[in-house]
């Protein structure tokens, strides 16, 4: 089980958190203007890479805040934790 450094509460155990999938996928401002393919790209397509992945987590049993995490999916090492709205760090 990971230890996750919640940017609002500090280090807590993974059981207090819930993962929310890949980060930095912005909901289109005007979905109705999109073709089926463009909408499907937003809705379904995820990278699922081996290596550093930017992903969303929520401190569901804590402050209930969403934030971002840069995690190496090959060994689960969390490199950086940063707030929503912040740019992904270069790693």
């Amino acid at each position, binding site marked *: 089980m990971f230890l996750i450094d919640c940017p609002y509460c500090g280090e807590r155990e993974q059981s207090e958190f*819930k993962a929310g999938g890949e980060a930095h996928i912005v909901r289109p401002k005007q979905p109705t203007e999109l073709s089926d393919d463009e909408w499907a790209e937003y809705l379904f397509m995820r990278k699922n890479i081996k290596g550093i992945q930017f992903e969303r987590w929520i401190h569901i049993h804590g402050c209930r805040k969403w934030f971002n995490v840069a995690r190496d999916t090959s060994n689960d090492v969390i490199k950086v934790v940063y707030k929503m709205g912040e740019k992904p760090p270069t790693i």
Partner: protein
Amino acid sequence: MTNNLRVKSSKFIDETYKISFKFNGTTYYGYKGDTLASALLASGIHLVGRSFKYHRPRGIMTAGSEEPNAIVQLHINTSRTEPNVRATEIEIYEGLEASSQNCWPSVNFDIGGINNFLSPILPAGFYYKTFMWPASFWEKYEYFIRKSAGLGRSPIEPDPDIYEHRYIHCDVLVIGAGISGIIAAKTAAKNGFKTLLIDEKSYLGGSTIYQNSEHFKINNQISSSWLEKEINEIKKIKNLEIKTRTSVAAFHGYNFLLARENLTDHLPLNQRNNKIRQRLLKIRSKKVINATGSLERPLIFDNNDRPGILLSSAIDKYSNFYGVACGEKNVLFTNNDSAYETAINLNQKGIKVEAVIDNREEVDSKLIKEVENNNIRVYKGYTVVNTSGYKRIKKVSIMKLSLDGQKIIGSKIYINCDCLGISGGWTPAVHLFTQSGGKLKFREEDQVFIPNKSFSDQISIGSCNGDFTLDEILSSVPKILKEFLNIKKSDFENLEVHSSFNKSKRNIWLLPSDKVIGKTKPFVDYQNDATAKDIKLALREGFRSIEHVKRYTTTGMGTDQGKLGNMHALGIISETAGSKMGELGTTTFRPPYTPLTFGTIVGRNVGKYFDIFRKTPIHDWHVENNAEFENVGQWKRAWYYPKNQENMHDAVQRESKAARDGAGILDASTLGKIDIQGTDASEFLNRVYTNAWSKLAIGKCRYGLMLNEDGMVYDDGVTTRLDENHYIMTTTTGGAATVLGKLEDYLQTEWPELDVYLTSVTDHYATISVCGPDSKKIISKVIPDLDLSNKSFPHMSFKNSKIDKIKCRVMRISFTGEHSYEINIQANYGKSVWQRCMEMGKEFNITPYGTETMHLLRAEKGFIIVGQDTDATMTPIDLQMDWIVSKKKYDFIGKRSLYRSDTIKENRKQLIGLLTENPDEVLEEGAQIVADINKSPVEMLGHVTSSYYSPNLKKSIALGVVRGGKSMIGQKLIIPMENKQINVTVADPVFLDKENKRLNA
């Protein structure tokens, strides 16, 4: 055979404390400090079990947790019975009863032994190959296969013992209290780290603590004396906690480890009552030091599994630690110096060693010289080619090895013996290291896998790191510790170490035989009866990946997980396939290191604590009034209230009729309630629901449907506008938490500019719903001040009110189609208000109803239940709820998905009503719906989602989803059941009061 093989008093055994125990019904004696294995060996017993597949007689092979053969059932036919316990780990206690497994009628005469002679027709994959054909026979085969499958018997009564879980946080965790672990624990603790030292055994000091040889000295003291002083010292250190009888089961990422602490298993049964038996420790350590030691390897030759064949190190421990001779005529077979230590020890205790067989040619070793000086014959460059003796080894046959080690030459020599010690060198116990994600590297010179890279803050020291000899350990461990703990100096540097061990080893994975391999049984996995022959067969049949070979041959899949033989399996694969060991890799080491009891895993979470549940404020009333409960999410909800031995059907029929004819009352407190405030609250609701919210007047309620971004129905419920910028949303009972999470997600990540605040208030209010034609009269008695006229308080509106002095919110909303009111009041007044409603409603025959009646009533009205009539593949259009999807709104969650090419298809599954030809026939929920049963394969059009007998309509009604169902109203369909077909007609899903007259009645 003599009955006492105790050879010498040992300080680890208390000979003044005699203990009696039973093995297979016979009483034996041992002493405090004995394990079941050492006590049996002292009584001359080697044969303890039968192997899994061939039922071959098997004996004690090791002296530790790696034991593959000597696994027994404890206390058979009692609630405390436990299968597959290693005799080498059980400390004997007064009252212990153990019995052999996998044999019938007895371990001495086992009918299953015939499999041994059938073995030529039982190769690897026998079951896969044989029982495939014909496929329809599987059910017949299965009965017999199941009977012979599995080891031991599981208990059938509830476990009488108590277990618990405990969290431990520390700076440094040291796993293993052998010489390396003791050094590590002392170094860490002395430098101020909060340290925890764990060992699976009952004592500290590992194998060094019973090492009394002049050949191994530290600072001119015998190694065990030196270590004993260190142990006495560390026991006094305050910031060092020591846990013995504690086995680390799992090493997860982020230095999170699970360990099982055994607290009472060594106590007499009558001293265990009300004590915690085992404790699961959940350990978080900043740093972890693996000092898990190493396991001696067996050697792989024909018939290497007979009772009386032990690891050489085990014979050494039995004589040194327990004072027990494993045999009276011992032969040792080795490829390294370890067995000579054993020979010297046995010789000193007066235990006869007939010969040492060494597959190495001439080696310059002090240990060998001493053995030879004691007139023990050493056969150099020889190998054992076979053994004989069915229930106990009687003889070994040996032959000279060719120079390349691949063949045997010369003629056979026979040596009589009753015990054979084998030593194939040492394998680092890297199990925990790899569990944590650590990677191994292969060291060619002595053919071992040792720890390499790791991503967590941990280190391996001592023999689990490939440093096997005393001098290697004492020179490497202090250095590694200094760097790992970032400290300047160590007390253990510059020790004067004397070790006579010569490190040379001649590793031959599969020793050559004078017979062809097909005629031999060189066991690699003892417990599962996998031989070298089986591994070669798997390779011939095309298996290449070691993970596949493992599963096909079952090598390493027993309760011991192949701790002894896995390396040989890899070696044989690599030799046969011509691949390099380092490239081949290992199979995956999985937790637990040794088996855990279910009790330890669940801890205190048993019985009513197995899964915690939530109670409404009115729960006690339901219990007092005989309610049956159903689980909804984590809630206990009143399901129905049987009266006078009614069954469920009768109770539900009565409740449903009463709710429509007079009045019904429902505890709806479990519905999720989210308080929504902020200047953008209306805009927020506009975006999350499919319908429009901006124009909802203050004091009004509206039903809303929430979709996922993929357009599928996610949740539903009524939301009330309490004030300009204040709403209260209700969600389904099961969906409350996920809906809140989803709403927070959009608020925080997509629309942070919105001024909206969400608060879960589910637990803050009790919700009481009173419905039926008489509900208005009842509420007017409960809250006399409230104006209930249709004009002032119409359907879908709300009013603030008071009951006595307590504020409450009353909503006029309905899930049954009846005129109804919902009282929301501070939770702790819930029960008294409920009781008042019951009292005031008495004259109207107010009837409490549960969730089953609620489901029936709403089905009569064709109202959906999200999760029952929907399954994450239903859009609002599929549900025939087009009316709730706003055409005007520019956007809401899921809108764009409602006109994807797939969601606009005409023949999607759509919600419809179903009426049976025979009005008394009630359909089964989940039953499949078809049109034509003659065309094969029969096309499945959909399934029944809700089905009831309606007492109000006096007929069976059902909801279902059917492909293209919307346009099939009036069409006949078929529901095929196991022994009949039911004819149904597709109908409108609203069965009762389509005009909604009752709502305003």
